[in-house]
């Protein structure tokens, strides 16, 4: 395991096999972590003394928000790799990541609204975190719209990579500007940071669900990238020699 030749797996043909072997394992991991995390979250973790049972949505909400940000970073990472090394696989990875990232951003907004209504009495407040999560969702949509509007795969990958990098540079700027904008307009009506320190058990539940989301994303992205590889290499001989294609 010491010397893995990473460039060997940069070829779609070899990565296709690796991804095929890996994704079921990540799917199993995701299920196991999810069951454990939700079991702790719903059955074991104590009721919060301030928020009652309603706080339990934290076990989905916080990991989904984390994941939406991690996936954008991963997209930027693959974009930089793709533009510097000019590898085809990087573009496919970025494209495979985008829908999952958008899903998590949406999930985070949705669960946030569901949580906000009983706790703050409003579905939506113009808090810095909420606003920047919404903008992150828009950035995902922009990436998906741009890449799907360009038919030429090479051009759409490179254009998508550029907008993903520009977006990644902008995310911190947007976050801080919205934060200052918010503090200028009104005192922070909502602060998640000053919540009482969390019980260790709640933290465990959240971490397990976060791990489950990681494994789920990896499994899904690997599966999706396999489909993309098949689509794009459908003219290649090696695809036609595959068992699942000839069958």
């Amino acid at each position, binding site marked *: 395991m010491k010397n893995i030749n990473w460039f060997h797996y940069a070829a779609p043909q070899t990565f296709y096999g690796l991804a095929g072997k890996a994704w079921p394992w990540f799917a199993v991991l995701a299920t196991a972590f999810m069951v454990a995390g939700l079991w702790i979250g719903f059955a074991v973790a104590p009721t919060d003394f301030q928020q009652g049972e309603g706080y339990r949505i934290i076990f989905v909400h916080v990991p989904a928000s984390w994941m939406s940000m991690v996936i954008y970073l991963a997209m930027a990472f693959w974009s930089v790799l793709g533009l510097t090394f000019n590898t085809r696989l990087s573009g496919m990875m970025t494209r495979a990541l985008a829908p999952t990232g958008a899903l998590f951003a949406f999930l985070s907004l949705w669960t946030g609204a569901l949580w906000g209504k009983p706790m703050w009495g409003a579905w939506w407040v113009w808090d810095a975190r909420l606003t920047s999560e919404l*903008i992150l969702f*828009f*950035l995902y*949509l*922009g990436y998906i*719209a*741009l890449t799907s*509007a*360009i038919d030429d795969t*090479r*051009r759409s990958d*490179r*254009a998508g990579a*550029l*907008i993903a990098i*520009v*977006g990644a540079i*902008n995310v911190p*700027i*947007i976050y801080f*500007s*919205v934060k*200052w*904008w918010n503090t*200028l307009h009104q005192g922070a009506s909502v602060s998640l940071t000053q919540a009482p320190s969390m019980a260790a058990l709640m933290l465990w539940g959240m971490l397990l669900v976060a791990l489950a989301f990681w494994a789920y994303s990896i499994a899904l992205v690997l599966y999706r990238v396999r489909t993309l590889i098949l689509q794009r290499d459908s003219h290649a001989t090696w695809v036609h020699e595959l068992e699942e294609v000839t069958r």
Partner: protein
Amino acid sequence: MSGGAFMAVLRRDVLLALRRKSEVLTAVFFFVVVAALFPLGIGPELNTLRLVAPGVLWVGALLSSMLALQRLFEADYRDGTLEQMALSPTPLAWLVSAKLLAHWLVSGVPLVLLAPVLGLQFDLSTDALTTLTLALLLGTPVLSLVGGIGAALTLGVRGGGVLLSLLVLPLFIPVLVFGAGAVEAQASGLGAQAHFSILMAMLLPAAFFSPLACAAALRIALE
């Protein structure tokens, strides 16, 4: 020599825009009409109007600069001028910065000049008008610079216009926040100095990096 090329592209683009006045004027009138619609929607209460004026004028400026953005590279792309620019010994990014400057002169400066007049309709004080104009003067170039990247990426793409807004408008948010915030800070007695500094801090890196990103995007489109 490259300074000569810069000036040549700048003059050419400004001249072309002035020869086709209707396109420039459309974006400007759009700005005026949007600004005039808001009081009709909100109601003529001057206290409310004074509060929303900076935001309304800034959002109007964002949208109207979006209209002009679509034409930034389109004509040159279609008739092959852009390819010649990419092939020329002068760096493409340098020529692109001339185009972006020309675009700002044609689409941004009229908005800056009109804003105080429209601000009067919203009953803004002289101080507020000065702040608003200065903020627009610092902020509108950023709109042209960042928007240019989007315009280059969506060159010749299906449904380019709507796509461009979806790509670029989220990236305009910091400019909007500090541009409109400057007037409010000034009105509340805090002074707009900090906002101007931040707008400048956005303008300078954008002026340096955006032509490079635009050039990269154009090369992708020209491949």
